């Protein structure tokens, strides 16, 4: 398909600008020629061109509204439309973030109540809604851990991270100046208590734990894990990426987590927009509330107001207050589901994942065969050994069957990993059809492996040369020389 630049024609524009109702000034006089740009080389297209171009592009994209999207760890549940309508109410979209609080009574009430509800659901003492995404929340959480020890006058340089963790965990730790130490998993995919005992020294600030972990397994020894970490003066960090598994079933605060980040674009159904915006609230226990980012909402005579008067805060992690409109959608979702809906979401998410796990067992290797939570992780190793068909081939072949592939090659501790997270919004019929497709691909891998290796066959482009893209990077278009 052509680029927007390639359909540009001088003299066209899709958006006009009103005629001025005030005197036009001379830019040379009021700004000065030396501050003016020489050329403005943006596409020149009509509105029809523009709409057709981006509509055509949208047709080359796959979203959860088009079909099943079992991307493990990403919780691609259906995004209810009502929440889009709600977030688009002018009262929510039209307000400047620096507007006086008297203009923003509804917004402040919404944000404050969202914090309160998240505290109730996750068992934490307080929440910040400022971080813009899950990884941003992680960074914020690790900063608070750093501040906590700084305040105590303890120098702890290390953070423990299980080998199954999301890559953002070690990256967030490193971005806060911590040395990250990898904690190997035990045979059943959980925290190895012996190794934890050995590694959890006076130099370790925290253990960053994802529970359920990235194998989709709940940490059965969580009480012991928390005890070891706390006994040695450390803090327990929870990566809440997988929170969809336990809504209303248990609370991280009760399990001993001192800080946890959520991903509203996963657990609370806000659309992920092809890579964002997300929202990454961070909940803390009593030990860490003083360190939360500012500003925070505090009650006052007139109702609620913003306050930065918290001397031990880590400071700000972004401008203004967070991805407000995303929070509006998540809040609307939370209120519509209510307590009963959240519990049912977790139950159906876990039921769906276990159903897929059971149905696909005959076709694929299952390295950890026990009841899973919201997702299950298979291995494509059998197919590699049998016919040289790799997990990436299976994933690409799924595209031809009309599905978005699962997460692949993650977690790193499973060879040829296939990580499937169906979410609660998928029906039994959808799961059955998907499992049939997976089984058909497994058969095809034996009978006609080349066909699987050639996949996808139904997309506008075939497999792309990623090596070329990295070796000769082309990240900006340049006009061909005349």
């Amino acid at each position, binding site marked *: 398909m052509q680029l*927007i630049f390639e359909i540009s024609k001088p003299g066209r*524009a*899709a958006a006009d600008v009103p005629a001025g109702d*005030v005197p036009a000034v001379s830019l040379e006089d*009021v700004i000065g020629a030396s501050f003016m*740009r020489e050329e403005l080389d*943006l596409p020149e297209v009509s509105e029809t061109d*523009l709409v057709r171009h*981006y509509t055509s592009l949208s047709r080359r994209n*796959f*979203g959860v*509204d088009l079909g099943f999207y079992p991307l493990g760890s990403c919780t691609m549940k259906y995004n*209810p439309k009502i929440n*889009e309508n709600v977030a688009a109410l002018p*009262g929510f979209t039209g307000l*400047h*973030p620096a*507007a006086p609080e*008297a203009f923003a*009574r509804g917004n402040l009430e*919404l944000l404050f109540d969202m914090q309160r509800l998240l505290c*109730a659901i996750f068992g934490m003492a307080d929440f910040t809604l400022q971080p813009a*995404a899950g*990884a941003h929340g992680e960074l914020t959480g690790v900063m608070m851990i*750093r501040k906590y020890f700084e305040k105590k006058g303890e120098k702890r340089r290390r953070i423990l991270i299980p080998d199954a963790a*999301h*890559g953002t965990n*070690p*990256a967030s730790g*490193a971005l806060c100046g911590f040395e990250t130490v990898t904690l190997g998993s035990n045979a059943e995919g959980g925290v190895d208590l012996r190794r934890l005992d050995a590694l959890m020294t006076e130099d370790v600030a925290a253990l960053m734990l994802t529970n359920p972990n990235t194998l989709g397994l709940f940490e059965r020894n*969580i009480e012991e894990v928390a005890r070891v970490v706390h006994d040695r003066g450390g803090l327990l960090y929870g990566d809440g990426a997988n929170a969809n598994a336990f809504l209303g*079933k248990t609370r991280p605060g009760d399990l001993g987590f001192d800080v946890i980040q959520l991903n509203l674009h996963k657990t609370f159904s806000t659309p992920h*927009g*092809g890579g*964002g915006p997300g929202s990454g609230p961070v909940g803390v226990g009593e030990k860490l509330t003083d360190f939360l*980012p500012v500003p925070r909402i505090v009650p006052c005579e007139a109702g609620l107001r913003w306050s930065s008067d918290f001397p031990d805060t880590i*400071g700000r*992690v*972004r401008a203004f207050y967070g991805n*407000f409109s*995303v929070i*509006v959608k998540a809040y609307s979702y939370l209120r*519509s*589901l*209510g307590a009963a809906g959240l*519990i049912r979401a977790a*139950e159906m998410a876990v*039921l769906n994942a*276990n*159903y897929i796990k059971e149905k696909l067992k005959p076709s694929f290797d299952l390295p950890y065969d026990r009841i899973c939570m919201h997702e299950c992780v298979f291995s494509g190793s059998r197919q590699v050994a049998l016919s040289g068909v790799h997990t990436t081939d299976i*994933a690409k072949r799924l595209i031809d069957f009309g599905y978005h592939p699962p997460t692949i090659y*993650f977690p790193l501790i499973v060879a040829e990993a296939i990580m499937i997270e169906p979410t609660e*919004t998928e*029906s039994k019929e959808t799961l059955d059809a998907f499992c049939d497709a997976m089984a058909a691909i497994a058969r095809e891998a034996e009978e006609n492996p080349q066909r699987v290796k050639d996949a*996808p066959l139904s997309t506008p482009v075939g497999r792309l*040369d990623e090596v*070329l*893209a*990295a070796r000769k990077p082309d*990240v900006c278009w340049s006009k061909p020389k005349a």
Partner: protein
Amino acid sequence: MDYCPHTSDDIARMQAVLGIKSLDDLFADIPRKFRLDGLPGVPAPLSEQETLSFMQALAAKNTLPRVTLTGAGAYAHYIPAVVGHLVGRAEFYTAYTPYQAEISQGLLQAIYEYQTMIAHLTGTEIANASLYDGASAAAEAAMLCAKMSDRPRLVVARSVHPHYRQVLQTYAWANGCSVTEVPYRASGRVDLPALAALLDQDVAAVIVQSPNFFGCLEEIRPLADETHRCGALLVAAFTDGTGLGILKPAGACGADFVVGEGQSFGNPMNYGGPYLGIFAAREKYLRRIPGRLAGATVDKNGRRGFVLTLQTREQHIRREKATSNICSNEALCALAACVYLAALGKNLARLARLNVDKAQYLKNRLADLAGWSEVFSAPGYNEFTLRCPDARAANERLAAEGIVGGYDLRADYPELDGALVLCATELLSREDMDRVAQILKS
């Protein structure tokens, strides 16, 4: 209302396949003592109709201003109707990050187009697919400079947006870097001799903004030269991106990184977010910059296609050695920016001129009022700083008329007590501005 399609018959059949008697069996791994029975403190479900009424009532508790005179990092601009329609295509907004390129060509190509437009607008060679917002983009750029040079000091102009400076301070502290502020002069611009005096071999980056928080245009070239003399790098932010329709970008004046808030390009103010952090750089930093990058390549038949490229910089590959921890960015906001810029095309320059005209008109009207005067002499784009007899009273008077007034500098700049930063965009009519002047006339 929940969105689970399961009938009781479905559940029974699925339980039979699993060989379990109750849904409780699925949660057996959670130690009994930590199991919840219900969710105290969380209200009962609402129907869709009730949800809408409830949320409408909440939105109605806000006061939607008739006129907004504050810029200060978020700008009230007209958004062409096409932007919402195209960004609202479910194929875009209900997708995850484009990990599977073959079914994500739409977003990947749009991001490639976005990167191209941003690099051009900022006068650089490359741009990433967005970071969280302008403030975090500035902080990420500064941290990258510190990491690349292994130098521990950052110097930031006091005329940079207070939130940007605060975020920079947070990131710097977490990385063991120190931040020093360089003052501004009576013109409103960075004090160049003071900057020169602060620079040494320990400084990794100098962070400035143009137009700056007061609305003044900085002279980037001399700042870049001074910064480079000690081997440091210049991170230049901007305020309202629409200004780039007419203003010479910092990338064309020697800046190494150009960052800023992209909200002005087709994204509503939304009480602060989601916005998008624009991050652009010199080509030589391509393999070091944070964030996702869409790159062009070909498939085996030679057809052009797009992928997420140079992923070895990123956390999911490099873990603790990644150039940043960012995963989700602000893709949909970047798509809005892309569509907005493609819709305006060269009209972005006309729009920017109109902003200048409006700002000049408002500034002149207000500066004519008794006791009101311009604080700084340097020229600006659509924001300007005025001193007035009583800034708080002025804003209160405007608020009483449903108008969001100027940004009161008292809290962030005690030395500028009594001064307001005001902004005029194309949304202000002459009538609005005359009315503002009328209200403020004592």
